[in-house]
């Protein structure tokens, strides 16, 4: 049987691939500051992110899909986060957890980057200082929904109007 560019087959496979991706989003440990403590709560038994597919938090960017930036990004840390993000294989996504990662938070000063999206593309922003683990979980689940729908693509959430 000749395998043609059958619309039905390709979309089915795409859907399957996206389902597999969203069900096994493995985050990278990138706790920078206080938000990291709430992220620890997220993996602890009460909130337990692993029941949603984030089974392990990988320490190596080579093995991770999701970069959860939890905490303040300082100017000195910028080359590091760029390198870590570059080392993550595609498809990869970024969650800016907390006020500091989203916009710099209360730290409008010489040391802190005013939002991680000035350096790397962000898919989901989570407000809070720190956000409760529920809020981060909501963000991860929302990201999963976007991945399944095909909108979140390799670090860019493209929304149809």
């Amino acid at each position, binding site marked *: 049987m000749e395998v043609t560019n059958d619309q039905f087959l390709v979309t089915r496979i795409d859907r399957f691939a996206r389902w597999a991706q969203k069900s096994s989003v493995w985050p990278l440990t990138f706790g920078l500051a206080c938000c990291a403590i709430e992220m620890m709560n997220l993996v602890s038994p009460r909130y337990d992110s692993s029941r949603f597919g984030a089974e392990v938090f990988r320490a190596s960017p080579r093995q991770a899909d999701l970069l959860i930036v939890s905490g303040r990004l300082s100017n000195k840390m910028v080359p590091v986060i760029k390198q870590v993000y570059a080392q993550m294989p595609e498809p990869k996504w970024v969650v800016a957890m907390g006020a500091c990662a989203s916009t710099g938070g209360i730290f409008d000063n*010489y040391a802190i980057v005013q939002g991680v999206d000035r350096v790397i593309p962000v898919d989901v922003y989570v407000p809070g200082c720190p956000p409760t683990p529920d809020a981060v979980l909501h963000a991860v689940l929302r990201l999963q929904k976007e991945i399944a729908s095909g909108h979140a693509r390799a670090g860019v959430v493209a929304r149809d109007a």
Partner: protein
Amino acid sequence: MHEDQAGRGPAGAPRDPEGGPPGWVRELLAAAPPGVQRLEPCHGIESLRVEPDALLPVATLVKAAGFTMCLDVGGVDYLPRAPRFEVVYHFLALSGDASPERPRRLQLRVPVAEERLEVPSIAAIWPSADWAEREVYDLFGIRFSGHPNLRRILMPDDWEGHPLRKDYPLRGPRALEEQDVPLGERFDFLAARVAQRLPHSQRGGLGREPDRTGPGA
């Protein structure tokens, strides 16, 4: 700060009835070179003003007096006072006539003029002062002569400026780039502070009494 029943001050030594300096301070002052002056105890901690040139001999004496720990080295910017800066050292003695339950504390304050931003390094005497002095250099620009590795520690290596100085903008280089507010409408924080004549800038900084004026005063 607070005394306990035995009438001992927070530094641990029994209080002198006339309220004069404890014995070890008197010994230290007697052996010290010129340029050392006792100040009012700061929050109960004995405090000495030491000229930069006298710092190394005094530090050696302090170490010999049993102060085995250098807790921290910090900088202060008293703009617009002259001398502009001060480097403050805190020491702790846990043995000798002190114990871990009743440690002895000492504070040294070294005035640093803007024209001569240099202080001898005590890193050879207390290794813990190494990084603390690097921090003061990074954030204030005060050089420590004889330091084994004097370079920035908190800010990126190629950063320009010393952020904790009073004339450094809070938002850093961004503040200069994002200045789209007309000149007449920008708020000059430094001028406002000087005009307000805050207590420390009026009293001259050194040897002041414990601060009894709180936020509500």
